[in-house]
């Protein structure tokens, strides 16, 4: 113990003169820029998907309805309520948030005598609501994938001259990757007209349990082959993953399930119909609405007969949608399952020509009209009457039926919907096969961003050589002296709707163009052919703007007659399927009621 050792400790006393390092006023001191403090939520961006609740390992988050937040497609109207009696500020909820609406401020002081006060809905009126500083996740959403999984497609060069199916469907690996991205929020279910159990069957893909997946599909939709290919997939527009990445490819996953269950296994999984109950139902039209109703009713034990005017069942699915989007054998497999339920489909039986509606009424307990929209609408512009101007639906039907259609070197299509693209791309294929070149011009009133057709139609159409010209209003079909079509004259569109939102296109007449072509195809809409009803019934039925009026149960004003599908509602296959279920339910109600009486 040297003297030095005794004395050195006292050197510490030099600090007595230093100013204290104490923070003068620590209460409420600003925390660091990225501090994970109290939550904030942007109410407008939040979609109430509940992913934050799912990931919270503390069970701190409840999804609750909030005044002012409306439940609508793609937004559950729920908002997270956080229990600060549970939260640990790990910010996993922020990291996983699908929209990036949930963030954290760097506020951290909350003192209260009431333990129940520590539950709050961020985004309402907390004092730190608009604070800028605080934890924001670095980069984008990383805890669930943002990029859609790759899927094989035929290259434009390989598909341009034939009707082979373009999409290969997911491989198992691709499907698992894609299914893995789903967060199972279930927002899509409300948007799907048929309310399919989307998250559940995606989970089945993830678990590689295709049997379970198929059963889930058939619970709500007997047309999975079809919908797995050509569904308008409105579900994907309300997918939570859409907000900071690609939406989940729900349609392709559906197709993936059906692709992976062989036909015989499907029948096994779906199971047989209930024992016959003695009721007989006639359905006019073997489209998606009619066949879905037929499927449901047959499973309930009814004897169902479907009368189809054309040579094969499927309606627009067969005669409207080109083969490259929906191969006929895929449709056939769906129809086969339906037939296996005991549904009798009688083709080439046009009601009103081959059999009278009255006969149907007499022989059956109920009749469902599912006649669809088979007649194309015309533009009624000068020159549109006469040869060389075709309706898209007619042409498509003829192509499917294998009839010869004229294939000029240049064709003009009027319309910007899926049908317009179907015919444009079909004609392009025929031209390529016949002439080796493509000469299709597609004109539409809308601008590119607002085309009614699916986005991939525009891309793929362009890839296949279709010239897409937006914002053109057709004015006249030009004909030469011989009356042969030479082209279409059009004006530029300045607006489509008037102030009241009514359809009233306005044109810039100075911007006039002539689209050259030996054929003009009108694809601007369809209408139903209701001639089969006969005058008496037409008179007796209630009508609504040219369509047969129906109630929520798809009952017409005649108790024995029901109507479903595009003819009364539209607009696509999945809606027809959803309505098919509903009309079947109504029919069942009616026939069981009759049973009670008799």
């Amino acid at each position, binding site marked *: 113990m040297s003297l030095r050792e005794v004395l050195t400790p006292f050197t510490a006393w030099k600090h007595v003169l230093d100013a204290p390092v104490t923070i003068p006023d620590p209460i409420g001191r600003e925390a660091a820029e990225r501090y994970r403090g109290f939550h904030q939520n942007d109410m407008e961006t939040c979609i109430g998907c509940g992913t934050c609740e799912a990931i919270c390992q503390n069970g701190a988050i409840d999804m609750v309805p909030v005044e002012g937040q409306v*439940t609508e497609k793609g937004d559950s109207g729920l908002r997270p309520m956080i229990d600060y009696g549970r939260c640990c500020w790990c910010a996993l909820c922020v990291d996983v948030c699908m929209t990036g609406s949930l963030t954290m401020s760097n506020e951290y002081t909350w003192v209260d005598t009431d333990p129940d006060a520590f539950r709050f809905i961020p985004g309402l009126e907390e004092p730190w609501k608009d604070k800028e500083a605080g934890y924001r996740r670095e980069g984008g959403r990383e805890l669930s994938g943002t990029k859609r999984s790759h899927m094989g497609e035929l290259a434009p060069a390989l598909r341009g001259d034939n009707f082979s199916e373009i999409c290969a469907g997911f491989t198992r690996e691709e499907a698992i990757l894609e299914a893995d991205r789903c967060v199972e929020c279930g927002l899509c279910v409300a948007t799907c007209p048929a309310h399919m159990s989307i998250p559940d069957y995606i989970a089945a893909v993830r678990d590689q349990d295709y049997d379970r997946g198929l059963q889930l599909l058939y619970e709500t939709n007997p047309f999975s082959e079809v919908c797995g290919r050509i569904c308008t997939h409105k579900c994907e527009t309300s997918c939570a993953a859409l907000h900071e990445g690609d939406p989940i490819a729900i349609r392709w996953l559906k197709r993936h399930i059906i692709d992976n269950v062989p036909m015989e296994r499907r029948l096994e999984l779906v199971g047989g119909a209930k024992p016959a109950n003695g009721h007989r139902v006639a359905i006019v039209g073997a489209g998606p609405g009619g066949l879905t109703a037929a499927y449901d009713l047959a499973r309930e034990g009814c004897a169902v007969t479907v009368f189809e005017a054309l040579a094969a069942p499927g309606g627009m699915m067969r005669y409207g949608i080109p083969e490259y989007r929906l191969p006929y054998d895929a449709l056939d497999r769906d129809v086969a399952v339906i037939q296996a339920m005991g549904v009798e489909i009688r083709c080439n039986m046009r009601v009103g020509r081959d059999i009278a509606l009255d006969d149907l009424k007499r022989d059956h307990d109920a009749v469902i009209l599912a006649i669809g929209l088979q007649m194309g609408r015309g533009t009624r512009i000068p020159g549109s009457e006469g040869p060389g101007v075709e309706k898209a639906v007619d042409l498509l039907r003829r192509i499917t039926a294998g009839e010869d259609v004229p294939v000029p070197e240049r064709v003009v299509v009027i319309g910007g919907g899926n049908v317009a693209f179907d015919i444009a791309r079909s004609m392009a294929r025929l031209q390529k096969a016949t002439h080796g070149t493509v000469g299709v011009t597609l004109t539409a009133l809308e601008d590119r961003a607002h085309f009614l057709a699916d986005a991939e139609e525009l891309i793929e159409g362009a890839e296949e050589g279709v010239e897409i010209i937006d914002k053109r209003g057709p004015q006249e079909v030009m004909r030469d002296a011989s009356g042969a079509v030479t082209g279409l004259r059009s004006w530029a569109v300045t607006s489509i709707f008037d102030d009241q939102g009514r359809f009233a296109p306005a044109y810039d007449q100075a911007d006039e163009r002539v689209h050259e072509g030996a054929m003009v195809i009108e694809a601007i809409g369809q209408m139903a052919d209701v001639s089969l009803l006969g005058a008496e019934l037409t008179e007796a039925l209630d009508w609504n703007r040219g369509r047969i009026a129906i109630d929520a149960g798809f009952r017409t004003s005649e108790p024995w007659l029901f109507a479903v599908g595009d003819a009364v509602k539209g607009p696509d296959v999945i809606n027809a399927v959803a309505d098919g279920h509903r009309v079947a339910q109504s029919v069942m109600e009616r026939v069981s009621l009759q049973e009670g009486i008799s």
Partner: protein
Amino acid sequence: MRDLHANLKTRHALGPFEPRRANLGFVTVPAERLRGLLTELRDVHGFTHLVLLTAVDWMEDGLFQLTYLMNDRAGDRTLGVRVMLNRDEAVGEDMHDLWPTAATYQRELKEMFGIDFPGSPRVDEEFILEGWTDLPPYRRDFDSLAYSQQTYAERPGRVTHDPRAHMKSKLYPEG
């Protein structure tokens, strides 16, 4: 490591060697050969450091797995020695004379899994829990959340809504 395994394999009736990394592997040994193996590893092969002793509950198979993790610092090798015990009457062999620290692990295993180690000091004394009356909590058939809910008062008043069901009730209640 593979050489070591080949060397010991027949003498100690070892199972196949399962490498995880270059310096980490696992091997299974019958319960009755354990002491011999551990002693040889410790005294001959330089695995002097008992890193940890713990158990894994393979309830479905009716087994407890005891893992003795042994480390040879000089050679930077770690060997996990696994012993499978019958879950219904799990009795392990006391190793506290080889490593005094093993007594602590064994006390914990007794309390948390119910695996007995006869002869281990203070093995029957309460270690972590106090006044515990239920199943040993680390067993798989003990449900922590259920126990918690049945025991501790929770603050009432929390309700959550499933987005899917909520949207159904709001948008399409009929079907």
